[in-house]
């Protein structure tokens, strides 16, 4: 689905550009608002990626991040750990870093590391 603009507004929340394009288990770039407004959609997408074996997510294009977003990351980690594996969230932008810092979750994300 194409992005529909930069305003933070449920009706106009930007959408991820990779929905449905799961081809490999390399780094997947997530973009757009990672908030309650897209939570349902994001859940489905993340679940599909995990099922397909993706274990690294690039967050550099994430534009907004809230507690729902935090939960989704937690759920993603839980899903991976169910399979005995771990996920990595890379290149966390400012909005994600701030939230993680406030909530003491700095260990969850990497800032500014390139894809391995």
């Amino acid at each position, binding site marked *: 689905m194409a992005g529909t603009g930069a305003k933070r507004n449920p009706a106009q929340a930007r959408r991820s550009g990779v929905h449905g394009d799961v081809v490999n288990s390399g780094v997947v770039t997530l973009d757009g608002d990672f908030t*309650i407004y897209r*939570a349902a959609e*994001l859940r489905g997408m*993340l679940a599909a990626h995990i099922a397909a074996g993706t274990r690294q997510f690039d967050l550099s294009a994430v534009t907004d991040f809230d*507690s729902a977003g*935090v*939960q989704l990351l*937690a759920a993603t980690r839980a899903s991976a750990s169910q399979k005995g594996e771990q996920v990595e969230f890379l290149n966390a932008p400012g909005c994600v870093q701030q939230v993680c810092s*406030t*909530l003491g979750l700095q260990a969850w994300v990497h800032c500014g590391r390139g894809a391995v």
Partner: protein
Amino acid sequence: MSGDERLLEEARDDYMQETRQMLHQFEQALLELEKQPADIETLNAAFRAAHTIKGSSGLFGYRSIVEFTHAVEAVLDAMRDGKIEVSEAAIATLLRARDEVESMLAEISAGAPDATAAESGLVADILRLRSASAKGDTANEPDTELIAVGSSDPAQRIRGIWHISLRFGSEALRNGFDPLPFIRYLERIGEVCGIATLVDRVPPLEKIDPEGCYLGFEIRLDTDADRSTIEGVFELVLGYCTLHLMPPGSKVEEYVRLLEDGPDPPAGEHNARLGEVLVSVGALTHNEVERLLARQDELRREGKAAPTFGELATTEAKTAPEIVQAAVERQERARSTQRTDETRFIRVPADKLDRLIDLIGELVIAGSGARLIASQAGSPRFLEAAQRIGTLVEAARDGALQLRMVQIGETFGRFHRVVRDQAKALGKEIDLVITGGDTELDKSMVEMIADPLMHLVRNSIDHGLETPLERDAAGKPARGKLALNAFHDSGSIVIEVSDDGRGLDRPRILAKAIERGLVKPGETLADEALDRLIFAPGFSTASVVTDISGRGVGMDVVKRNIEALRGTLQLASTPGKGTTTQIRLPLTLAIIDGFLVGVGDANYIVPLESVVECIEPPANRNVGRDSKTGYIDLRGEVLPYLDLRTLLGPANAKSTARQSTVVVRYGPAKVGLIVDRLLGEYQTVIKPLGSLFSSLRGIAGSTILGSGDVALILDVPALVAHATASSTTARVAATVD
């Protein structure tokens, strides 16, 4: 002073006032605890008072007070946990601590940037109290009050670290409440020195409801804010989460207990994870967690049903969770009532109030002037309007004067501590009974009456009341009674200090008076006259000058202080039964209802409260020697009178046809004042006479009539005293001529 400095100054004044209030509450709680050591509610009240003092002192950076109150708070906390006994010695130490904080406050209010450190002997006593423990300490028991994540800096240890435990309900996010802004807001009231976000309850992607909420938080907040401020941060979202707030110094067990509301994974794992969380956030040390885990394993091995972590920890320390919960609820209720109280009262600077009263005084005069003109103008409508204004002004006057009235109960209440300390020092048992505490008097008087009252109370305890042994021998109950009473009576406020002790020792007083040449040997005096001798300067019959009284500087100073307030002092004593001292003070100072009379060409005001009735003087009076005084037969009663024309007026004043007698009273004594003209009621603004006239007896002040003429206000007590003066040793007040 810049705006900021002024703000700080005001804030500091508020701090001083609040802290003094807290000290008062602290003292009250301690005195109550002495009588009821098991009362947890009172113990909590004492703890809260100390805690509040610590908090606000920290806000202003008064380190010495913070450090000292922290130690005191720790003692109280240990008492709450039953680790220290609420003994008389402990309470005595805590009372000394209260006094120490008061003197530290005095240093600050005198301008010091911080108080000097608390007296080291007292600090040592307090620390000794703290380390004494009813049950032995286990080896690994850490000092859980001093929790500061990874820091041993004393300054940081002292600022309070609160523990906030949040569990959000599933509907929070869906309804638009995101925990993030609330948690961020905490940074505005303190420093978040530790936070753990709990995601145990977040299901994996396949099962999660993406718009539900599964988050919990354990937060360590380093702040000086109080409980209600911290809770206030989450006020809006309380409907979607559970909040547990634990003040600095909370016990380990409490933390653990609070974490027991999650879903139920296998016990061991769950507990271990909990333990980790608590450690990571700084609430527990590894030692403590291990100790509790080990105990749990032990119980499981013994085949007993493994209790949950929280249950275990709670039983180990034998703290009843209900108590903590009840305390929280009580605090909640206290806070909500306090909030209503806070909105009921407004603090007003006293000088603003005085200016208002002055203004109303001028209004009274102006109103009288208007009424006078209205009646002279002969316009009934104008007169009616002027009278309506007068009524309203009167009401405003009464309202304004009421603002300055405070209840004397506040002053009386301070004596609990005095009586307790002094009785203990002298080995006497004394009950303080207070009645009439809601009697009101002017604020300025309240401050000035405290010292005389203090002296009278001390006298009673020192000289009047006997030791339990002596009382027993005299057939009295071992506990002596000291009573403080207050009531209103015809425009005065009456304060009584009475005891059921041995009464005034009259033979002793007489002997001392003869010794000092106040009385001639062989002269006989009435009992009341004898009693009044103790008001002579330097008089004391005490054989032993104690530290407290008996130095002979007291009673005459007391009398002078009372008279400076235009009051009077009366003694009544019965040997073996007790003594009562009665202080009588005028109620209002600035504006009174007066009765205008004319004598010769002059006008005088008689305070209306003292007027009993007006009668025609009978033709047959018993005129006294100086023709100024005499006696009238008032319906069978002997009424002394004063002929004001001869007493106050010019020598050649002619008498008018019809004179009147205004009967006035002060206390039980009545006097008739013979005047030429009765001119009716008059609202009187008292203007003090200049210092030139201060020795004038019989005149209490002056006022300006609506016509612009001056009227002198009669000092009724002085006139009454003059008229009823006995011919024996009591000195007669100087008359006006």
